[in-house]
C-alpha cells in the first residue's frame, strides 16, 4: 500500500508541473488546470490511506467534515465573485493555504511539546524541527498578511495604517518571533505557551507588515505571499516526509518569486521599496512643476465621429474600466468600429488593473480576441500611426512625466505612449489625479480631449454616436 501511495504522489507531482506548463499558453491553459486538478484529487484521496489515518475513525469523520466545510465555502465564494474582484479572492485562498501550513506545523509542535512529559511520544529530527518552525512562521505571516490584502482590495480597510516608528516596531516584533522560533526549533523541550506566543507574534507581524503598503502595490504583495505559502508548504512537506508537498510547494515558491519580480519590474520599483517604503512618503515632496495648457472637454458625439472616421484606434483600458464594468460596452464599441473598417487594438500596461493580466481576463470575458490585445513593447511603436488613442479609466500608466521628469515618483516606469497618438481621448470620471496622486500631463496636452463621465455611460454615448452616423 505504501508503494501505491508514493506512486500516486509521484504522478501528482508530474501532473502539477505539466499542468503549470500547459497553463503557460492560452490554447492549452484550460487543460493545464484540469491536469493539476486530477493530480490534486488523486493525492488527496490516497492521503487517507497513509499509515495511522484510518486508525481513528473519529478523526476520519472530522477530516471529511472539515473538507466539506472548507470546500463548500470556497466553492460558493469562487463561483459568485465578480471577475473584477478576483485578485482579492486569490489573496484569500492563498492565505488559507498559508494558514493550513502553519496549522500543520502547530499540530506537529504541540505533539512535540506533549512528548516531553509523556513517554514514547512524537519525535522529529533536528532538521525537521527547524523547518517546521520556519514553515510555521512563513505560513502564519502569509495567512494574516493575505487577510489584510483582501480587506484592502475589497474596500473593507480603506486607509493605509502606519504606526509611529512602524519599521522599528516591525523589526523588534520580527526579532522576537525569530527568537521564540529559534528556542522552539533548536531545543526539544518546548511548552505549549511558548508555541502559542510564537504563533500570535507571527500573525501580528503579518498584519503589521501589510498594513502600511498601499492598495496599488497589493498585487505584488499578494504574489509574494503566494510564493511564501508555497515555501511554507514545501517545508511542512519535509517535516511530514511528503515529497509531493516539497515539489509542488517549491515550484510555486520559485514561480511566485519570479512573478513578483516581473511585477515589481513592470512598476519600475525595487521590491524592497514596495515593501518597506510607501509611495506617498518618499514621492510626495516631488516638485510640483507648472503644467502647460488646460484640460479640454469633448462631447460623446464628437468623440464618436473622430473614432468612426479613424483608420486605427488604440484603446488603453485601466482599472477605471473594471470598476465601471465597462468591458462589455467596450467590446460592443470595438465591433461597431471594426464593422466600419477601423483597426482596433488594445494596449495593456503590465500593471493595468490590479494584477498583471487582470485587464486581459476582463477583456476576454467581454469576448475580445486576445490577438488584438497587445502588451507594452508590442504596442508602443504603433501609437505614432494611431489616429485615436482612447484611454478608459487609466491614469498613471499613460502619464508622460514618467519619461520626462526625473523628480517624479513614477519617473522611469515604462508607460504606454498614448500622448504620441495623433489624437487622444480620455474617459474619466472627474478631474482628480490617479492612484498615486500625481498630476497627469497627458490630460493637458494639445492633442488630448477629455470625455467626462462614468466609463460605462461614456462608452455607451460613443456607441450611440457611431450608430447615428
Amino acid at each position, binding site marked *: 500500500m505504501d508503494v501505491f501511495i508514493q506512486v500516486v504522489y509521484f504522478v501528482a507531482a508530474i501532473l502539477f508541473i505539466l499542468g503549470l506548463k500547459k497553463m503557460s499558453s492560452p490554447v492549452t491553459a484550460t487543460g493545464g488546470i484540469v491536469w493539476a486538478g486530477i493530480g490534486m484529487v488523486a493525492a488527496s484521496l490516497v492521503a487517507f490511506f497513509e499509515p495511522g489515518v484510518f486508525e481513528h475513525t473519529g478523526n476520519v469523520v472530522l477530516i471529511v467534515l472539515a473538507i466539506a466545510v472548507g470546500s463548500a465555502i470556497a466553492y460558493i465564494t469562487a463561483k459568485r465573485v465578480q471577475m473584477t474582484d478576483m485578485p482579492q479572492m*486569490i489573496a484569500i485562498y492563498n492565505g488559507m493555504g498559508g494558514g493550513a501550513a502553519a496549522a500543520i506545523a502547530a499540530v506537529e509542535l504541540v505533539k512535540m511539546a506533549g512528548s516531553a512529559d509523556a513517554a514514547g511520544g512524537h519525535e522529529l529530527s533536528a532538521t525537521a524541527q527547524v523547518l517546521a518552525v520556519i514553515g510555521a512562521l512563513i505560513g502564519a505571516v502569509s495567512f494574516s498578511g493575505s487577510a489584510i490584502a483582501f480587506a484592502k482590495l475589497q474596500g473593507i480597510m480603506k486607509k493605509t495604517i502606519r504606526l509611529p516608528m512602524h519599521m522599528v516596531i516591525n523589526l523588534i516584533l520580527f526579532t522576537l518571533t525569530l527568537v521564540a522560533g529559534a528556542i522552539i526549533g533548536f531545543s526539544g523541550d518546548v511548552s505549549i505557551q511558548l508555541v502559542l506566543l510564537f504563533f500570535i507574534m507571527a500573525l501580528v507581524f503579518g498584519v503589521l507588515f501589510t498594513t502600511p503598503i498601499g492598495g496599488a502595490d497589493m498585487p505584488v504583495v499578494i504574489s509574494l505571499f503566494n510564493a511564501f505559502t508555497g515555501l511554507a*508548504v514545501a517545508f511542512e512537506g519535509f517535516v511530514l516526509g511528503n515529497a*509531493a508537498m516539497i515539489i509542488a510547494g517549491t515550484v510555486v515558491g520559485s514561480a511566485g518569486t519570479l512573478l513578483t519580480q516581473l511585477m515589481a519590474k513592470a512598476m519600475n520599483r525595487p521590491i524592497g521599496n514596495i515593501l518597506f517604503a510607501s509611495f506617498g512618503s518618499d514621492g510626495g515632496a516631488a516638485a510640483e512643476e507648472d503644467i502647460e495648457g488646460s484640460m479640454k472637454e469633448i462631447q460623446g458625439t464628437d468623440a464618436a465621429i473622430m473614432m468612426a472616421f479613424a483608420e486605427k484606434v488604440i484603446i488603453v483600458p485601466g482599472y477605471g474600466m473594471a470598476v465601471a464594468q465597462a468591458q462589455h460596452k467596450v467590446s460592443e464599441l470595438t465591433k461597431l468600429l471594426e464593422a466600419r473598417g477601423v483597426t482596433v487594438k488594445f494596449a495593456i500596461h503590465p500593471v493595468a488593473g490590479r494584477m498583471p493580466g487582470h485587464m486581459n*481576463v476582463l477583456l476576454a470575458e467581454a469576448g475580445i480576441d486576445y490577438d488584438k490585445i497587445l502588451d507594452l513593447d508590442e504596442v508602443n511603436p504603433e501609437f505614432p500611426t494611431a489616429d485615436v488613442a482612447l484611454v478608459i479609466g487609466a491614469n498613471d500608466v499613460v502619464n508622460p512625466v514618467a519619461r520626462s521628469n526625473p523628480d517624479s515618483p513614477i519617473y522611469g516606469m515604462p508607460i504606454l505612449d498614448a500622448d504620441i497618438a495623433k489624437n487622444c481621448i480620455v474617459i474619466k470620471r472627474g478631474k482628480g489625479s490617479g492612484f498615486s496622486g500625481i498630476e497627469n500631463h497627458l490630460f493637458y496636452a494639445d492633442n488630448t480631449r477629455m470625455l467626462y463621465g462614468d466609463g460605462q455611460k461614456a462608452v455607451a454615448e460613443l456607441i450611440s454616436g457611431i450608430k447615428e452616423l
Partner: protein
Amino acid sequence: MIEISGFTALYIFMLSAFTGYEVISRVPVILHTPMMSGSNFIHGIVLVGAIVVMGSAQSALEQIIGFIAVALAAGNAVGGYVATVRMLEMFNPKDKKGEA
C-alpha cells in the same frame, strides 16, 4: 511516509526551484493572473499534509488545530481551482471552439 534525508531534500528543493522558474518564465503577460491563481491552487497540496496530520491527531487540541488545517487547505484547493477555471474559460469563447 518515506524517509527523506537532509541532502535528498535539498536536491529535490533545488531542482523544483529551477523547474518552477523555467515553467513560468515563458508565460505571456495575458496569463499572469490565471497563472498566479493556478499556482495558488497547486500549493493546495497542503491538503494532503493536513489530512495526514489530522488523521494521527490524539488530543482534543490537536484535533481542533487539525480540523482548521484541513478546512483551510480544502478552501485553498477548491477556491484556487474554481477561480482559475473561471478565468481560463474566458479565453475559450464558445463560438470558436475548433481552432483557438
